[in-house]
């Protein structure tokens, strides 16, 4: 790891981290401010929701959520947090190496006396730190929101920790898969479409598995690997799916190193 590359990378992403984490914190507070209504009128609410077609409820992963409990309510909100974080992590993954190439600064960095392994490691650690900083804001605002709007209702703290911690595994998946795709295609001109595509695409897949009941599809998407509703219902991760998720991330990371070390940096113009 090179401290100077890490610092440079971390700084260049700092603004984006602020925007993402503050937006997510704002969504968390806004959403939780509605919780008292849901909790007080639980019966009415569940009756109301029952009127929706089951496909729609499935699409939002609400089939087995009880919106009148803190954790049930939070798992619905968590889906949106996951969506934001998925797009953010994919963006960082796609941009990790490709931004240097599209903004033509790769020549500068790679003509310095550092190995490519070190460059990639420093970049990855910087991106991970940025994501963990985002997580910190999410964790703190979650507890603050529950404190403010939870009406003192009891919930299982351990389960909430499991849900919150799952974010890191979830982010690692999008970061590393985004990175490996960016190294497999010849040139990434703009990061945003790729990032949105991967993040939103994974979410759509998970929604479809709900709608059509195609169980094998859930093997593909981290939204199912780390489904908050499942964690809340079982007080545990779905271990095989989490292991599958980690395996995909690690293989992507390994492949990224292999590709990056052998990569021909495209010339300017």
């Amino acid at each position, binding site marked *: 790891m090179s401290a*100077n590359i890490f610092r440079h990378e971390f700084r260049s992403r700092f603004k984006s981290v602020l925007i993402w984490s503050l937006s997510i914190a704002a969504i968390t507070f806004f959403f939780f401010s509605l919780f008292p209504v849901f909790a007080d009128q639980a019966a009415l609410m569940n009756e109301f929701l029952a009127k929706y077609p089951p496909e729609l409820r499935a699409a939002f992963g609400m089939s087995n959520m009880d919106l009148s409990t803190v954790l049930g309510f939070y798992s619905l909100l968590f889906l949106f947090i996951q969506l934001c974080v998925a797009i953010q992590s994919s963006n960082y993954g796609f941009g990790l190496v490709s931004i240097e190439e599209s903004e033509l*600064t790769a020549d500068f960095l790679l003509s310095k*006396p550092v190995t490519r392994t070190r460059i990639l490691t420093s970049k990855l650690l910087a991106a991970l730190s940025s994501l963990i900083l985002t997580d910190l804001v999410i964790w703190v605002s979650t507890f603050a929101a529950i404190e403010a709007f939870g009406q003192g209702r009891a919930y299982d703290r351990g389960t909430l920790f499991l849900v919150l911690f799952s974010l890191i595994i979830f982010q690692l998946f999008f970061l590393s898969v985004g990175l490996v795709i960016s190294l497999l295609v010849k040139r990434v001109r703009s990061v945003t479409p790729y990032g949105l595509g991967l993040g939103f695409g994974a979410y759509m897949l998970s929604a479809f598995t709900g709608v059509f009941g195609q169980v094998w599809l859930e093997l593909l998407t981290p939204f199912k690997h780390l489904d908050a509703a499942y964690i809340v219902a079982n007080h545990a991760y779905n271990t095989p799916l989490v292991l599958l998720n980690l395996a995909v991330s690690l293989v992507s990371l390994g492949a990224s190193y292999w590709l990056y070390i052998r990569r*021909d*940096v495209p010339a300017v113009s």
Partner: protein
Amino acid sequence: MSVIEVNQLTKYYGKSRGIVDVTFNVEEGEIFGFIGPNGAGKSTTIRLLLSLIHPTSGSAKVFGMDVVSRGPEIRRDIGYLPSEVYYYEGMKVIDLLKYSASFYPGDHTQRIQELSETMELELHRRISDLSYGNKKKVGIVQGLLHSPKLLFLDEPTSGLDPLMQRKFFDLIRKENTRGVTVFFSSHILGEVQRLCTRVGIIREGRIVEISNIRTLQQNNYKKVSLTVDGSNPLSFDMPGVTNLQAENGTVHFFFKGDINAVLQKISSVQVTDVTIEEPTLEEIFMHYYE
């Protein structure tokens, strides 16, 4: 001692040619010119030597070390000025230079100051606000600030005004007298002529000629111009004469061979003026391209 040894280096980008079977050496302390038209493979060669790209076959050594396996070590003592300079746009000039310096051991603040004073570079402006020529200056300072032993200059003067070009050349000469080896790629022959001791000429990915600038100019061709009275210019069409042109009583041609043959021929006609000179590199160069 050879600072750069290139041995049958070949690079294909998929099917399209980069360079083919390129072999040459650059000796310590020389300024080696590398000339060729756009797309001939100049940048490809430099990028291979910096291990920004990987060779298809062949090998290259810098400071006696293989470029593929020992790139980071080699790059410690290399300064590189790319043909097009692009840097992190949001940064200030000084921050970029400090970032660049942080990759090399030691303190380089003093040298950054000196170099940017010489090149009249304003350190506290944002890179995104700089003109093309000013970005080029950032590139120059960035490439020199760690006092490298070997400099790669890839068409360095584009975008610099003549005054700056001169300052730049003085800077390079000064570095050279300190023992720095310079690899100077260009398609502008005048500047190569001014600066370099030896040149390699590359064309369509292959080296066509490597020689001393002097021998290139002396041994090859003489440029002869005559003003003649009433003589048939075509009488100069003899063995060794090329590019014969005649207009309004003046005759120009290139001559290669025993110069006495031309002198005898000239003395046999009535001339009012004669010049025999070395052709410019430009004119020699055109010859290689025909």
